């Protein structure tokens, strides 16, 4: 072991695996700057969160660093022109996503001049923290470990939870990937300045840099660069998935971030080493996120790390590495453990692309057919989250999703350690993804059903309320006539005020209605057997309520018919009802036979609209909250 390697105090997590590293292939040559391609295709969705808002038009000439799309909403990231040139298209194109589906992209044809837009750094040491973080919305910087969570969101400290420890994730635990390794070897000083900025923005007092012991050169470079600072380089054993944020925090601090909390809630924030370098470039020079280091490795002639402009076509990168060998079958984005097969060779390099592996049957033999699970529990021994993968597999396979959830399915980080050790070659993670998506879909359906039910309940409540209001109005009117007749009674007995009477009447009306509903099946007269002590006011109110219902029904009917001809089935109606009908007719006549701007219907429409708006707002808020909570912590997970 290298003399520099010094484990210090390390807090191990359960399990983990150590697959063949395959890292040396791509660390033989220094990072090379990739030449300008013929065109750049910039997907708008290169990060977790909202799609940014396009600020340019087709045909616009843009300069390097110019804002093409600005962050939209809380969780979003801007997109900038990686070089100067002309916008040739804003349309759907294939993006690097497992689905292979096209998504919105801006296509830029470089003019070859690479002319920068005016840009300058910020004196961050003497600027208010809040405005610094706000300015990051314009930087386009996202977590470059692969999770691409907008960095400006991670730097927003909400006052409630002060961050005391900044963890720099330089573990890079996945095989093949070496972009962070090479970055640390070559640009350690800049990284350390970036860490200083992040530390300043968070107000963290402690900085730990976690690096796996298979990167001695990077460790040496970082130790040298941090020599005169309080930052501490901590060497951790090479064990996948040490680079998972929660695992790394445990390794370095011995602290398990509770499953339902984000790291910031326990005073810790984690940044990838490449992300802090981007922070440095932005604050020191005013350069937004335009490029990243990508490991181009696997079945290519000369595996190497390249500094690649976002939007560069995949094949341009492959050719720069000497081209793919003849037996190359496909390309993997990310590492072999958590990466995915690119659906098309015609995709651009995005902010998430830390590594591209050219795959061949030699490098990645097709797995042998899966055999039944024999419950050997090697997966449980390997699981870094201490789950019981064999049980989860069983539940997922038998569609027993509720039990899978109880067995903490959603704590699974899909690292693939279980699949890696499975002697029966079962693609376990695929089962977990399936179960998760099924559960999420079921939850959404349930949410929608709940929403519909809520909406219906709100509607029923509104109808009830309107009935009461109407009853009250009529009771008041009746009481008013009464008090006119005997004003003394009204003034002498405060309990018998119109208000109190109306209330009583309303209650009585409600009771009557309930009873009437009960009896409606028998088609009995609705007024039979009503309240215990029917008062004149109550009777009035009851009638009024019935009248109101009839009125509403008629109004609705009228609105539907949009015609003047209206059935007059009013023979059995009481005087009050007849009066109501007359009133309605009068109003209808006044507006020329069009449905009256009935209070009930307008109110109903308004209520409905409000309910829908509220429901949409609620759904959006839930979604945003869930997304933010889930993703804030999964950032920079896979190194």
């Amino acid at each position: 072991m290298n003399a520099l390697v010094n484990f210090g105090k390390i807090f191990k997590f359960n399990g983990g695996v150590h697959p063949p590293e395959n890292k040396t292939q791509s660390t033989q040559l220094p990072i090379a700057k990739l030449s300008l391609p013929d065109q750049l295709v910039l997907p708008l969705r290169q990060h977790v969160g909202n799609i940014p808002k396009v600020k340019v038009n087709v045909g616009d000439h843009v300069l390097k660093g110019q804002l093409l799309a600005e962050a939209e909403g809380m969780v979003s990231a801007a997109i900038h022109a990686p070089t100067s040139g002309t916008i040739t298209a804003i349309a759907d194109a294939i993006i690097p996503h497992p689905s292979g589906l096209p998504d919105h992209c801006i296509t830029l044809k470089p003019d070859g001049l690479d002319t920068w837009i005016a840009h300058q750094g910020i004196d961050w040491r003497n600027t208010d923290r809040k405005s610094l973080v706000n300015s990051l919305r314009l930087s386009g910087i996202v977590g470059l470990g692969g999770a691409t969570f907008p960095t400006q969101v991670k730097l927003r400290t909400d006052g409630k939870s002060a961050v005391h420890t900044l963890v720099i994730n330089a573990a890079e635990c996945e095989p093949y990937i070496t972009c962070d390794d090479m970055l640390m070897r070559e640009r350690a000083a800049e990284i350390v300045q970036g860490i200083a900025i992040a530390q300043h923005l968070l107000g963290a007092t402690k900085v730990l840099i976690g690096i796996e012991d298979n990167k001695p050169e990077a460790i040496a470079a970082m130790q040298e660069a941090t020599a005169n600072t309080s930052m501490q380089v901590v060497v951790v054993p090479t064990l996948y998935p040490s680079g998972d944020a929660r695992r790394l925090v445990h390794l370095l601090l011995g602290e398990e971030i509770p499953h339902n909390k984000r790291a910031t809630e326990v005073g810790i924030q984690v940044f990838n080493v490449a992300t802090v370098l981007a922070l440095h470039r932005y604050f020191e020079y005013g350069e937004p996120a335009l490029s990243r280091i990508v490991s181009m490795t696997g079945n290519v002639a000369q595996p190497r790390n390249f500094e690649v402009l976002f939007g560069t076509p995949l094949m341009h990168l492959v050719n720069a590495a000497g081209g793919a060998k003849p037996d190359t079958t496909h390309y993997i984005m990310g590492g072999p453990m958590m990466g995915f097969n690119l659906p098309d060779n015609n995709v651009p390099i995005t902010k998430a692309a830390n590594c591209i592996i050219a795959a061949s049957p030699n490098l990645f033999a097709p797995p042998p057919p899966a055999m039944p699970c024999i419950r050997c529990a090697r997966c449980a021994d390997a699981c870094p989250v201490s789950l019981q993968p064999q049980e989860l597999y069983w539940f997922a396979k038998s569609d027993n999703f509720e039990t899978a959830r109880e067995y903490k399915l959603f704590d699974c980080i899909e690292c693939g350690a279980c699949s890696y050790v499975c002697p029966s070659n079962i693609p376990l993670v695929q089962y977990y993804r399936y179960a998760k998506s099924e559960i999420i879909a079921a939850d959404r359906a349930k949410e929608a059903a709940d929403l519909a039910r809520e909406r219906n309940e709100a509607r029923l409540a509104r109808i009830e309320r309107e009935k009461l209001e109407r009853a009250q109005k009529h009771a008041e009117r009746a009481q008013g006539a009464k008090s006119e007749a005997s004003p003394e009674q009204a003034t002498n007995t405060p309990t018998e005020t119109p208000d109190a009477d109306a209330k009583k009447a309303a209650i009585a009306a409600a009771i009557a209605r309930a009873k009437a509903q009960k009896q409606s099946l028998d088609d009995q007269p609705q007024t039979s057997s009503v309240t215990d002590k029917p008062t004149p006011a109550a009777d009035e109110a009851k009638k009024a309520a019935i009248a109101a219902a009839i009125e509403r029904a008629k109004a609705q009917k009228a609105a539907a018919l949009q015609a003047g001809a209206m059935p007059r089935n009013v023979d059995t109606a009481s005087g009050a009802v007849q009066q109501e009908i007359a009133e309605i007719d009068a109003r209808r006549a006044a507006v020329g036979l069009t449905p009256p701007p009935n209070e009930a219907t307008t109110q109903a429409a308004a209520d409905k609209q409000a309910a829908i708006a509220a429901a949409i707002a609620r759904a959006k808020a839930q979604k945003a909250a869930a997304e933010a909570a889930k993703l804030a912590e999964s950032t920079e997970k896979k190194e």
Partner: protein
Amino acid sequence: MLKVLVALIPAIGVYVWMYGGGILVTLTLATLTALLTEAAMLKLRARPIRPFLSDYSAVITAWLLALAIPPLTPWWLIVVGTAFAIVFAKQLYGGLGYNPFNPAMIGYAVLLISFPVLMTKWPAALQIAQTPLSFGEQLHFIFSGQLPQNVLMDAVTSATPLDYLKTQLKLGQEISHIQSAPLFGVLGGKGSEYIAIAYLLGGLYLWQQKIISWHLPTAFLGVLALMSATFWLSDPAQFASPVFHLFSGASMLCAFFIITDPVSGPTTPCGKLYFAGGVAIITYLIRVYGGYPDGVAFAVIFMNICVPLIDAYTQPRVFGHEK
């Protein structure tokens, strides 16, 4: 699973040395029966045959059953037992990975209940037998059921140490007196104690190869030792020593090869301790108070029933969760 077979080879070697080559015939019969019935069942169930035969799981079942039953029995006994184990205890439950019970132990229990006389007639070790049989004579007996002329069955077989101990204790004998019989060796029964040691070595090899975890054998042997020690210390005249219990009967086979069947056993580390501990307690109780000389098979089957419960209640704490 090939390594499990490899780990059994030392014990088979000692077996041959102690009891003659008859066991090899039994093993061959068991293996053939297992492979044939497994293939037939896979065909009936329209499952691919080759991958399931080449995982050796059927062969392991066959070998464990062959090693568990007396070595000098008619050929059809092992055939019936193995076929039952494969067809009923394994394939009809869904084949590999789906059997709730240890197939070898189901096969053993069925034979023990159906053919109690044959299943309790153990040949004496060659060194102490009145008339040790040659391999040819053993072979002849297995297939024809005929002993050589002038040789009586009693001259070939003897009670097992556990059996003898039990019957003698019932007759009011004391342990020290009983164990002075030629049947007994230093640790357990004469001859069988060497096989037990060979199982132990094979088991340690499996542990070293990370095929089995320490939990099951340690808990089984530990609890068996603890339990027998408690009784033995309370009354050494009535209860055999822990060493005797550890090296007699199927203790070592059970500890390293039977309860370590992952399919029918628990998966959580803590669950394995409970499971093996339970098997040890029941085994001891059957040995001392039950109607059978050894109780491993019934103990294992009973604890197999409890596996879902054990697993459910021994879930380890998940990262970032409270217990």
